[in-house]
């Protein structure tokens, strides 16, 4: 078997093994589905609820991607501002940290009041959760420039903009990409958390609403089916950002 095939099948094999084990445990110990549903229960629930869940996924995904986009644009901008001068970084970084450590669950009520549209409120919440790794990694990346090359740019009196475009951004790219990968997961978590604390039912109901309602209705297999969709989406986001990363960094050939 080729190395490529192995590298695709190995994680699948692990997953299948895990599901079989889970199914076995549920089966042999007669664990009732409302306590811990077996994968087969979840699959059944997933298929019978696929319409509603698919719709909910679409809502959540909208918030996730919007939050990720905002995080990238805003996070990179903030990192650029911070890197302009050590004093700016010293002055403002603490407040960026403040933003990260303020639990969104606690801020959500305020955000709902300040932001009229529910969708926008959700995006704001999710962005608050997802943006920090982008800022922090981009900043670190912008600062991790090869001192020799930096000297070269300085000597040639490169303008700030050109240093940014031609030196700092390419140098920051690997760390930015690592941040993007962390953030893509957080944006999803953020969207779900936001829906939990600020979400509504109705047409724009996301996966969190499905989870909550399934929980209140004691339909635990459906709750897990919704959870499963979230994790699958997270995995897809991870692999997507992984591919982007490889694409963007493909010519960083190693010796």
């Amino acid at each position, binding site marked *: 078997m080729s190395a490529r095939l192995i590298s695709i099948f190995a994680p699948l094999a692990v997953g299948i093994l895990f599901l079989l084990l889970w199914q076995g445990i549920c089966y042999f110990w007669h664990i009732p589905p409302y306590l811990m549903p077996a994968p087969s229960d979840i699959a059944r629930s997933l298929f019978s609820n696929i319409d509603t869940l698919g719709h909910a996924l679409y809502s959540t995904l909208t918030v996730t991607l919007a939050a990720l986009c905002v995080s990238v644009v805003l996070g990179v901008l903030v990192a650029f501002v911070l890197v302009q001068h050590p004093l700016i970084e010293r002055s403002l970084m603490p407040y960026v940290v403040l933003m990260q450590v303020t639990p969104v669950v606690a801020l959500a009520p305020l955000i709902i009041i300040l932001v009229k549209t529910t969708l926008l409120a959700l995006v704001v919440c999710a962005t608050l959760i997802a943006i920090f790794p982008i800022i922090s990694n981009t900043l670190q990346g912008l600062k991790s420039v090869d001192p020799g090359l930096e*000297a070269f740019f300085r000597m040639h009196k490169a303008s700030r903009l050109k240093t940014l475009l*031609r*030196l700092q951004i390419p140098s920051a790219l690997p760390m930015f990409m690592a941040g993007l990968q962390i953030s893509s997961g957080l944006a999803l978590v953020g969207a779900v958390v936001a829906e939990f604390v600020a979400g509504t039912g109705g047409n724009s109901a996301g996966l969190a609403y499905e989870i909550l309602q399934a929980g209140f209705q004691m339909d635990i297999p459906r709750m897990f089916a919704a959870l499963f969709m979230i994790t699958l989406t997270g995995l897809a986001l991870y692999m997507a950002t992984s591919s982007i990363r490889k694409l963007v960094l493909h*010519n960083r*050939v190693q010796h």
Partner: protein
Amino acid sequence: MQETVISIQSAEKTFPNGVQGLAPITLDIHPKERIGLIGPSGCGKSTLLKLIANLHQPSSGHLTWWNKGFAEVGKENRRLSFVFQEPTLMPWSTVRKNVRLPLDLEGISPDVSAPRVQQALEIVGLAHAADRFPAQLSGGMKMRVSIARALVTRPNLLLMDEPFGALDELTRNRLDEDIATLCAKDDLTLLFVTHSLYEAAFLSTRVMVMAAHPGRIFAEYEIDPSIPRNEEFRLSDTFATICQDLSKLLIQASQSSLLAEVA
């Protein structure tokens, strides 16, 4: 009065860890001079070059460039290029884009820069590798890219820190001759560090022999600038004598460094 290219007034460099890289030094570099710096490893040659390139700030003392501040450097007829001791290329860009970088930074359009980049690559013999990435080059090839990048701006002052150390004798000799030709043709002032006495003798109009502990200029040696630097010169008795003189000075400088270290 003709302007001095570089004027160093008792500039000194002490590093944060307390090591004095360079004792106070005073030196004037005049247009069209070609100065070779030789001296034992660790005697402050790179430090001196970096002071001149404004990459280090002197701990005390003062420098001027073309009788002006560093702010004026880079404008017409005051171009400065530096070949670092290590290649310092952008690993994410091809050879061609690496060489084009200083022209891009000046805002020169790709149309204008393309032939100049091609020409610089031909001088260093790397036209065939223009589309490779630095990681795909041999050590000597990387250094030659760095040299091409310094030449592409047609500098008025060229600083080179052991640029040819990683090159074979033949490539090195050819590049030495190319540099000599460039210096003769253009209004080029040259300051270079070398470990080859022959190279110092061949290229320089003035050789500065440095010693360590602390870094300082131990001796100066003038070579008639009117002698044409070509194959004939390399085989002449004058050349042999110059090399022998430099060798003696270098031995003295090294001994002085060792004595100072023990003291």
